[in-house]
């Protein structure tokens, strides 16, 4: 991809992140959204803080070459949170798509002629790729989550009983889910 889009993203990074963050945060109820936006303490506001950090990282590395593994690590923290919050999968992972609209808006605002249409569609497909990765991450998080859930009782009680030899006959079937 040529440098125009990259330059543009770099130049308008703060604005784009700000807008994107606002969009993502507005997926929460308004009372909560204001808290997420306002509260600066990362320990009193892990959701807001994680969200903004992840969005930054994604923008920074959006156009990198070898990005798939990196992108997973950038998307993981935010989706890890959203996947246990009250969102359907489309919303939990779909926030990535807000980026398309925001970038277009920004391009219009800037009346930037540099970025050509084919560059833009290349960017779009990058974002599409990102969404797919986001869904992968989402699925992975849910999978982990259910594993934890399934293992909990076992880890908590069964394991101890088993170690104590108070449970017999199931050892062959034992499979480690962790």
């Amino acid at each position, binding site marked *: 991809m040529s440098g125009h889009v990259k330059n543009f993203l770099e130049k308008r990074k703060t604005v784009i992140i700000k807008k994107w963050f606002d969009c993502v945060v507005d997926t929460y109820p308004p009372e909560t959204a204001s808290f997420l936006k306002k509260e600066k303490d990362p320990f009193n506001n892990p959701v807001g803080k994680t969200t903004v950090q992840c969005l930054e990282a994604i923008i920074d590395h959006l156009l990198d070459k070898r990005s798939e593994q990196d992108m997973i690590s950038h998307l993981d923290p935010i989706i890890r949170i959203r996947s246990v919050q009250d969102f359907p999968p*489309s919303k939990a992972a779909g926030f990535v798509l807000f980026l398309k609209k925001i970038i277009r808006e920004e391009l219009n605002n800037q009346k930037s002629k540099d970025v050509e249409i084919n560059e833009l569609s290349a960017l779009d497909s990058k974002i599409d790729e990102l969404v797919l990765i986001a869904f992968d991450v989402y699925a992975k998080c849910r999978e982990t989550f259910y594993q934890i859930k399934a293992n909990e009782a076992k880890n908590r009680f069964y394991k*101890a009983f088993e170690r*104590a030899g108070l449970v017999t006959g199931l050892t062959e079937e034992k499979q480690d889910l962790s």
Partner: protein
Amino acid sequence: MSDELLKPEELIKIDHKIPSKDWMDTPVNIRKGMYCYASNPKSVEYVGLPHARAWNPLDDDWKLPENWKQIIHEGFKERLDKFRSFKVFMDICVRCGACADKCHFFIGTGDPKNMPVLRAELLRSVYRNDFTKVGKILGKIAGARELTIDVLKEWWYYFFSCTECRRCSVFCPYGIDTAEITIMARELLNLIGLNIDWIATPVANCYRTGNHLGIQPHAFKDMLDFFVEDIEEVAGGIQVEPSFNRKGADILFITPSGDVFADPGTYTAMGYLMLFHYLREKYGFDITWSTYASEGGNFGFFTSHETMKRLNSKMYAEAKRLGVKWILGGECGHMWRVINQYMDTMNGPADFLEEPVSPITGTKFENSKSTKMVHIAEFVADLIKHDKLELDPSRNDHLKVTFHDSCNPARGMGLLDEPRYVIQNVCNHFYEMPDNTIREQTFCCGSGAGLNAGENMEQRMLGGLPRANAVKYVHEKHGVNMLACVCAIDRAALPPLMEYWVPEVDVTGMTELVANALIMPGQVDRTTDLRGEEIPGLQSDDVKTEGDNVEK
């Protein structure tokens, strides 16, 4: 197709600006993963609580007794007359909002009704309607509303989404304690048979067998016997000999049964055994366990004051029967809130016991001279201070430890420095989490007060997010890999929490760390910790520990 569905404009449009409806007009939405199953009628029946029945929170019909409104109203009135805290807290909140963002559930879920002030308003609105003139006259303008089935459902959902951790109370200028309000609300709900099973069944079990899992006495002993074997293995041939229900022992030991039956609490239990063995060998320390009072934790506390008292009574009863001098309490959170703030008042005076004195150091535990029950952290800290324990902290060198203050010992008792003193004497690598997430400002594990069930896992993950987030911070900054705590619910709740948010961090009890570092009399070289894991550096060639290949 995707064009139609996922146009960003549309997504944005849909998600933007949800009209802000008045909270009173927003009915509760009981969501999967965010609530606990209804109580099993058998459990409710066993302890003789009213209106036992099978019901499902997701159903429209909760099979309430005919006169449920009257029951609630009368129960409300009775509690206002019995508890000044309740009455005052119903009246004086100014809704300043200081508590709003202090609740871990609000921080994690973002559900506005999880703000402590609003949680309390759920009850207050009905209070105004039923018990104040202004509310009766002005109605909704005065913030009053009638108790309807929707309001009741809201109560049930949100008062079983409070872990009674009291963090909000720390910041309230009037000390309004949402825990206190939640306790009252749960009492009211129990009057019409609305409880959750993760509370009701442990209550019944504790009542009958003495522990919340319903483990019968022989199994309890078996379990400890197994620890004896395990200790022999990991501690190089040490043969510990716990005693049970032994009359004439000096001291009775009571710990939550979670330590006996659930990982990683079991390692803490092994720690107790090793510590007691060490003290017996060295100083003739004389302590007994009980199978009757084998549960320190008190799920009655999450049901009603009366149930709490019924379960708690076993401690003094057993101490009296066995004729011990005083009671030593293990690591537990709400057990200690009950002991510290309720036990003596409810089931005392314990005049058949002696004022606690450490038989080893001679230290008088002045602060527990009436209740006659000493916390193991106080007891061990005193031993270490008097140099009565031979310790090798380097045996914990593979651990980088941080300490999670459990809500109840922190905000209902003030046990902050004792466990820190102990841990810092048995570990060389100790790191604190940020100031506003520890001590009296500690974040809840998200699973306290009976919410430690399996079905509400999302709720627990979100409630524990602020805690996990602070752990993650020290993990990333200092490489912390072990989260210590002095609470059995923590030891049950934090491992899955860590597994989801910070998979590299494990959970331990304080006494496990002590036992790791303790140089047992007559031990041969110990190369593993209590978990049977090799301690790097003590082995001729380092073997990589297992935990490392857990998938991300």
